[in-house]
């Protein structure tokens, strides 16, 4: 194991998108869409 005190964050390029940030936004956005969908699903069928 190497020493971690001087770890340089060599960022590997993200597949499909330009940045990893877009991946994270996709995950958060999809979760938000799911919650909204579940909310209306609950409302509609109750």
């Amino acid at each position, binding site marked *: *194991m*190497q*020493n*971690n005190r001087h*770890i340089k*964050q060599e960022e*590997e*390029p*993200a*597949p499909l998108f330009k940045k*990893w940030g877009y*991946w*994270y936004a*996709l*995950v*958060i956005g*999809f*979760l938000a869409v*799911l*919650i909204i969908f*579940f*909310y209306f*699903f*609950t409302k*509609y*069928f*109750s």
Partner: protein
Amino acid sequence: MSLPDWIVLVVTLLGIVAYGLNKSRTTRNLDGYFLSNRSMSWGLVLLSIIGTQASAVTFISAPGQAYTDGMRFVQYYFGLPLAMIVVCVVFVPIFSKLKVYTAYEYLENRFDGKTRMLVSFLFLLNRGLSTGISVFAPSLILSSLLEWNIYWTNIFMGGLLLIYTMSGGAKAVAHTQKLQLIIIFAGMFLSAYMIIHMLPAGVGFTDALHVSGKLNRLNVITTEVTKNGFNWSDQYNIFSGIIGGFFLSLSYFGADQSQVGRYLTAKSVAESRVGLLMNGLVKVPMQFAILLIGALLFTFYQFHKAPVFFNETQVAKIERSPLSDSFHIAQREYEDLSVKKNEKVVSFVDALHEGSEVNMAAKENELRQLQQQSDSIRKKVKTWIGSKQVGGDNNDTNYIFLRFVLDYLPAGLVGLLIAIIFLASWGSIAAAINSLASCTMIDFHRKYSKGIIEPEKEYTLSKKYTLLWGVFCIVVAMFTYNIGNSLIEAVNVLGSLFYGVILGVFIVAFLFKKIKNGSAVFWGAVFAELIVLFVFFLAKTNVIKLGFLWLNPIGVTCVILFSILFQGLFAKKINPTQ
């Protein structure tokens, strides 16, 4: 079970073992055995992560949960996607850069040896016991339903997977998980299809959803905010799901070796990240789909006679008890209500097809009243079963889906569903045993060995530790049967007792760069664990009302606060003039 079921079961299980052995070829060193030489694609990492998290209980208990309590259990997973992002940003790059075998190696580098040992020990204790229960829980269900010997079922449940786990390590575990998940999803899809297919003519999928929804089984989003404020003791609502679920998922994916060991096998940081993020995308819909099976099953039993209690072993117990007569009266009342409900639900669906709002509202109201009466009889029976006079287990959630499988599904499909229970268990147990062996080998054996051990010797020792942990888990499963079902409930919250503290140590390591004193973090973790245990004791004895998911953020917060406090105290002790 019929002969075709036995054939399907035996062929599926032996097929998986043979496939695992076929994928066992790896280099004879620790890189090959525990990390599959860091060669896995994101797809395999994703399936391995899902296979590790999803146990047999995930697939058989979740539909039962939706049947009894509705679909709100899905909220438990809302924090998971957010945790995946934090793991990708913070944990993965560091673990990957340091080329660690276990997450806990990093803690020695960051703090000191004793902090690493403490956290690794907490992991071994928690994971070792909970894996034993993971062997026992599905074995108990199968032995009750099929009248199999519990000891032999434990041995087959925990023993067969050892053949490929010991032989091929992480590589065999990942490849078998891939095949297991394909079979599991195919089987669950077939069951859902059969439930809809067996509904009466003219009742379709959306009709089934309407019936289920009107009877409060499609309650996916709940807030538990009332006039009296927020209900802190409620386990599954949107707030506990996002906050508590986030901390639980973060500790599970960031600090539990059984998951860390899966994404460390990826060939690059990018492959690890994509595997984890894809898990964040698919996990919630996957759980939603499994719970939906339970909600549909609930509708199915509105048209068919449902047992008042689904575990027949416990029914036999109450029938032998002094409460037998009362039980039979309740059972008859329940059956009568079933007939009435059947008539009402048919007229409700007719009103639904006509589109008559007034008629629909009237039928819905009648149906709800009948359901309330049914629920109250079921509640009464459950209280009787749990009473001292009967001394039984009054939770039949795990039996609801399987009772349906045995009573209604055709020959062959029953065998496949029983095989799925084994496969789902094997996926999580194999990964857990592999991680227990890696921590024992790397964090303890290698650390305390004098001199350098040959790679071939380390490889052989790792296989032995895998076997030892496998045997340990089977032994725990055997003892669990002797102790009783109360232990299962205790072990369900075991994760929350330790995960918060384990995660707290990692958060201090990653985010509190000024805290460098290992002793401060070590004692911070010890005190935090004591606080968590004390809060749990207060909740258990009803002094306070608190759902177990909240123990995770409490553990994390306590470790951070105590570490900051002790860092300050120890610094003053070293240099009292400052």
